[in-house]
């Protein structure tokens, strides 16, 4: 799981990408991104999530997002991606399913 907090923009997107790529490189096909602490998400961060989603799918897995912030849900809806990711509104909803190391970005 990668935990993302604060404003996730062009400055933070590379760290998010690196964290997710590291987990993929370790062999995890299904990843979880905890966006519960995120307050802002722009298209560069969204692009990282879309690319990672494709990598997960290629490896036979999925990229799950844990998100509750209305602003971020709005971004997903505007871009038509709200149905592209498995979405969860709490960590409880995925309890027992996460794998891999946990890292925090930024």
């Amino acid at each position: 799981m990668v935990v993302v907090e604060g404003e996730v923009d062009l400055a933070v997107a590379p760290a998010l990408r690196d964290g997710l790529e590291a987990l993929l490189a370790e062999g995890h096909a299904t990843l979880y991104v905890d966006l519960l602490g995120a307050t802002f998400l722009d298209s560069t961060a969204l692009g990282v999530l879309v690319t990672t989603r494709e990598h997960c799918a290629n490896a036979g897995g999925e990229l799950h997002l844990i998100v509750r912030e209305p602003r971020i849900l709005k971004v997903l809806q505007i871009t038509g991606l709200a149905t592209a990711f498995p979405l969860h509104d709490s960590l409880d909803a995925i309890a027992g399913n996460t794998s891999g190391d946990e890292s925090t970005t930024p």
Partner: protein
Amino acid sequence: MSDRDDRAPSDRPEVISLSFPARADLVVLARFTAATLGARAGFDVEEIEDLRLAVDELVVSFEAVQAGGTVQLECTQAGGEVTITCHVEPGGPPLASRDVGGEELWGADGELSKQLLDALVDQHGREHTERGPSVWLKKRRANVTR
């Protein structure tokens, strides 16, 4: 103490000019400026948040076709409408520096950025001026009609 409320929307045009190096960690300055002007224009919280994201997308999408330099924003509010124009003076390191991921990041999100701008503002576009290419957006307060 003055009776004047500095936070009240004003019909007088207010202009903020902002210039900063084209660095990823400084795009927050554009968001902060846009939010301030949106508040001055009488935007509600959701409209301000929309404007913050829109100006971020404006700067970021513009930088995709630029090679770095200095970002120059001209932000105007009048009568419940905010207009922001972004221009980049060439020179210096690109915003999408090596550490940021460069083309790999840009290539993934150009269309997403356009979708967001389409949804968040009333108008946006690109144009060529005598200073070079620029991008702009306009966003009106919800209860303002033109």
